[in-house]
């Protein structure tokens, strides 16, 4: 019982700390040095992603997520 209370309090504290962190999310324009790097782009390897999406689209029952699930191929 005691352990549950401690765990509950710990979880609440953790959630609260996350909430306060929200107000400081993000960076100032002059702090974008790393974020501006090509390696940090969400789609940093567009051709790899495109080839992978095509393979998995034709070999598995799911598609999309990162971009459109769309049509475009009758591939087996």
């Amino acid at each position, binding site marked *: 019982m005691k352990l549950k209370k401690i765990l509950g309090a710990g979880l609440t504290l953790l959630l609260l700390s996350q909430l306060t962190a929200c107000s400081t999310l993000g960076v100032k324009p002059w702090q974008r040095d790393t974020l501006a790097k090509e*390696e940090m782009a969400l789609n940093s390897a567009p051709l790899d992603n495109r080839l992978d999406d095509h393979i998995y689209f034709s070999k*598995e029952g799911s598609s999309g997520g990162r971009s459109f699930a769309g049509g475009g191929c009758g591939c087996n």
Partner: protein
Amino acid sequence: MQLKQLANISMALAAASCAALGQQAEAGTLLDDWQFNSAILLYNETDRVSAGEAILTARGDFGDDKYLNLGLVVDALTGASATGAVAQPYVQSFTRPSGRGSYDVAPGVTPLDDTFHDTRVQLDASWEQPLATNWRASGGGHLSKEYDYLSMGLNGSLARDFNQKNTTVSLGLGYSHDTISPEGGIATAFAPMLLRSDYADDSSYQAAFDATRDRADDTKDTLDVLLGLTQVINRNWLMQLNYSLSMADGYMTDPFKLVSVVNANGEVQQNLYENRPDQRTKHSVYWQNKLHLGGSYLDASYRYMWDDWELTSHTADLKWRLPMTDRWYVEPQFRYYQQSAAEFYQPFILQAEPLPQYVSADYRIGKMNTYTVGAKFGTKLAQGNELSFRIALYQQNPQNDRVAAPGVLANVELYEKVTAVMAQVSYSF
């Protein structure tokens, strides 16, 4: 402005043609506004499909944050693809989907149609530009043509930045119209696969075959909606959360796939062409993180997908880019995928039971997990050009979803694993 863009394009084209002729391109400075990416991928499954795919994309910078993206994809597939029919302890004969010719499958072997081949060419283009302060828009289209398949589509997106560009909200819409015209036409739902040897002559066989086909082609329309939220967490952490909805309406049956009807002893009595629903609504939530960790870059993503075919899936993807020297980097890659079976998936049909409305024995919509393990090696060259190599192993493990295999089916492999190797070379210039 329009004229300036046209002039830019024509000069870039002129420069490209000069370069192609081996002449010195005088308009070289204009080509500097274009970034080209190219890649060749070879995909090879053990004893099954082999594919080669080449991509060339070009991104033109028209100033003021305006870009034109052009893409060309050419791919070719050949080899053997699982038909959906079950293995048997004796030799089985199959008619090719076109109705012309047949092939035999050895005892205990998963039936594969070895005449599977196709070539595809795809063209796509899109234009992106700012609309107002903090607003960006893009619009584009694609055209993809295979021997028996045509896809045309349009897409557009709108994005708004907030909070000093630390938060971006986007909305994307895509529509595509596909037409499939398989050789030999489209079989009626659950049409039996006929065998020439059961008929006295060609004409009686052909008449019976034609009676199993009811149209030459069919279509499918897909509407996609994508809602995205991108958030900068801190100097070393970028996150994206997407929700996507995809609604497809039309022909989604695979015209080449069969499902075996077996008796109580597991012996095949007949093979029927499969039948899938003509509507499908898919949802997915995709969460991606880009992290800078002590000089290395981690790309970690997770996707949960669910649809009204009752197929759900989990996908986890990790790519970790580690600089080796000033110029070289190595990037280990790992992907795990797990899906449940679509509600109408059945590895076979029992003769004693009534025929359901929809059935497919295609393992790709059955219960399955897959994993991909690979590595990419890349190097920066002069003038910002980049060369990279990627190699990966892709393993598919179809699973039995609590289906009891009667009689002879207990002694054959109904859920055969598939192993593929992928090798890719990319060059950006």
